[in-house]
């Protein structure tokens, strides 16, 4: 299954990213390379084998419902590219 230009457009749209045509060419090549690599797995017969989701087949440990506040508002906002004292700022989004 190869990737074509419309797939690249679609994935870019879902990730809310814009690319120039030359960038898209590069992405197209990279993505096809990745898929070709993963394609090798299809050589293995997995008929009737349950997909492996977890590396450890153990029951998940549940966390007690206890509050721990580990960072401050200032720390929380530290990595935001744009912010004021309270909020993270992003470009205007009108409708979800």
């Amino acid at each position: 299954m190869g990737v074509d230009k419309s797939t690249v457009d679609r994935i870019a749209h879902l990730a809310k990213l814009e690319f120039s045509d030359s960038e898209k060419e590069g992405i197209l090549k990279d993505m096809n390379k990745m898929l070709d690599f993963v394609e090798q797995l299809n050589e293995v017969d997995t008929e009737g084998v349950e997909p492996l989701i977890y590396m450890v087949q153990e029951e998940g440990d549940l966390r007690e419902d206890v509050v721990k506040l580990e960072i401050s508002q200032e720390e929380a906002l530290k990595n935001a590219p744009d912010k004021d004292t309270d909020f993270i700022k992003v470009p205007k989004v009108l409708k979800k």
Partner: protein
Amino acid sequence: MISQEIVDKYEIVVGLEIHAQLQTKSKAYSSDPNEFGVDPNTNVSPITLGHPGTLPRFNKSTLEYGVRLGLACSSKINYENQFARKNYFYADLPKGYQITQDKTPLCTEGFIDIEDDSKKHKRIGITRIHMEEDSGKSIHDLDPYNTLIDLNRAGVPLLEIVSEPDIRSPQEAYNYLTEVRKLVRYLEICDGNMEEGSMRCDANVSVRIKGSDTFGERTETKNLNSIRNVYRAIEFEAKRQIEILENGGEIHMETRGFDAVTGQTISQRSKEMAHDYRYFPEPDLQVVFVDENYIEEVKTKLPPLPNELKEKYINSYSLSTYDAEVITEEKYFALYFEELTNSTSNYKSAANWMMGSIKSFLNEQAISIQEFKIKPSQIAELIDLIDEGKVSNTIATQKIFPAMLENHETNPRDIAEKNQWIQQSDTSALDEFVNEVLEKYPEKVKEYQDGKTGLLGLFMGEIMKLSKGKADPKLTNQLLRNKLDL
């Protein structure tokens, strides 16, 4: 405008998706506080912020609350619970995916009983209830140039409750939502406050010609913020669809919003441009197993449920449906009544006290029953006093009850005795009835005294009614004559 006759040819089909914010202490997958109304971006953690290298850890309480609701809706509880990633890109979703459940919802095949438009019993199927997390909040109207993001809400645990398309009218949707809200409040898993967004509703609406066995194309109206608005949106949306179909058009699957001012639904995005969520299993969270022992444990801790109580009050206590509904509307009000009826078997009188004097006092003071200082046992004692004929109903409601409110430590018997409100002898109890009846019919008294002595029977009858037939006829006759014969 389309005529009612044409509207009546169609049947409305509705399924509701409800998101209920859970009242846990910490968030679904991290330990930062789940708390409303604090400064923006203060209740956050590296996990909530989606920092690389962080790992989510699943909150015990989320599971327990989900199982509670599942049991209350008679659902099957799923044994093996996987989490899944629902991928979409939006500024208030820092990780770029929501952790939810996809193929293994916690609860399936449940139901909730409601009343249909003609007040008949109707069962609405619950397809699934699954656990997920809320997103942050985008604020569009505070800054003219930017959207502001507050991530306090990000990661707050939610239950999504998906109904079968069993709902057939706006009123049924209204009744269903009211029932769900009552249930989550009884279970104390969500405050059910739609206006504040802690319970939210999306409505899937379609129409079809009555008798048709296939569904019409549906639209989804999002983010309805009150039960009333769910009603209005469905009503509008069904009419809109009927109009399109009647004019030879077709309905397209799309997401719509609701404008509460105009009462109209507005197209937001069509499904052709719909999200592709690319669900896949969440590898960062292990499977959670829910075994029979655990389910039993949660079951034994369940509070009495509103429908069970309502049924008991109607069938075993012989209360009217209306009375039973009013009493079970709110959990602690119903629990007070439960305690009260443990101490008295005069259920009707107990109901009257709850819905009369007690409810009006609570309303007057704008307080809840939990803040009400008089104990159920004291009200039961007051009811006993009336039933024993020691005090009249009037004295009880107008004198003793207010005195108990003044000083809630004292018991009604002491109050009555101290104030000499106890009807000491049969004569004094009867006296009150006699006076009440004579005051009620001044013209008849005059007619009697003018010679129409046959009216004595009318007075006797009224007194008997008042005394619930317990008045001694001979004594009553005597008392009446004493008063009437000048």
